[in-house]
């Protein structure tokens, strides 16, 4: 079941809509806005490539669809130095405790993108072996559909996450 974490903050698409939303739903001071901007500028993903989506994530980080345009080319090996977990691929029953442990090891603030349908909802594998949606284990901020999502789709998901980060209260 998707979790409503940010009541009233509906993210519009144009800058005017975003400003409207922000004024209506959330009060941000200049400092909060600055912190939000800084956080979104250099999110470091943790290496958590599992399956086919991992190959597309690598392609997104490579030369043609460059993730370093948004400060994300450094994939941190240690979760303790990362703040974004892109769960890319199907999560099996055996891997689920490892995923939870990696999530717990990440320091706050942290965000999770469920990349692909397998991470979002189990994908085409509605069976005994695959976790039906990674949001049963970790709280997910952005779900990107696709099998696998194109690099542009992943980038759209990352940009949506960045909008969310920029407009949320930093210290809740």
């Amino acid at each position, binding site marked *: 079941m998707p979790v409503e974490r940010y009541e009233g903050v509906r993210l519009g698409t144009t800058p005017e809509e975003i400003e409207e939303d922000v004024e209506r739903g959330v009060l941000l001071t200049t400092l909060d806005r600055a912190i939000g901007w800084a956080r979104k500028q250099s999110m470091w993903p943790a290496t958590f490539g599992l399956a086919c989506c991992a190959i597309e994530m690598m392609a997104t980080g490579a030369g043609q669809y460059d993730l370093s345009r948004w400060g994300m080319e450094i994939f941190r090996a240690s979760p303790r130095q990362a703040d974004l977990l892109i769960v890319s691929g199907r999560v099996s*029953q*055996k891997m689920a405790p490892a995923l939870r442990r990696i999530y717990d090891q990440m320091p706050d603030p942290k965000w999770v993108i469920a990349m692909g349908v397998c991470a979002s909802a*189990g994908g085409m594998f*509605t*069976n*005994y*072996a695959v976790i*039906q949606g990674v949001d049963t284990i970790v709280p997910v901020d952005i779900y990107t559909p696709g099998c696998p999502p194109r690099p542009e789709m992943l980038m759209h998901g990352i940009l949506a996450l960045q909008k969310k980060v920029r407009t949320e209260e930093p210290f809740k």
Partner: protein
Amino acid sequence: MSVEEVAAAVAERYPDVVVARGEATVVIARDDLLEALAWLRDEPRLRMDALSSVTATHWPERDPAFWVDYELRSMPSPQRLRVKVGLAADDPSIPSVTGMFPTANWHERETYDFYGITFEGHPELTRIELPADWVGYPLRKDEPLGGVPTWYRDAKMPPIDQRGQA
């Protein structure tokens, strides 16, 4: 050698050979398995010295219910042979061939993991794909596929093995 010649050579010793769709299959009793594989490997016309795969199929309404399948291959000459052994449902155990073919190690572990067929003499017969504390043997036909119902707005569909459609 052509498939028919391979089948004829095998049939001299193990007559239960079938040739279908360009492939030769021989059915062997469980007690003859190790001896048969050694003979197939050493027979100069056949030289089946490589094992490609070990797997199993579950036919619950037949007897024997479990059919273990060995895909043999000859590296010197391009020929293949399938060896099948039938196991009864209440006694799914079979000698392990890891002594002769070390490659069968993980294949047999996987077959045990999915079907519960024990391979006697295997150096380490534990679960390999599923978590170590998993209960049940999921690829058997009487085990469900698992999975959750699919929700979309107010429509709900059961998992695919319970949908009752074709």
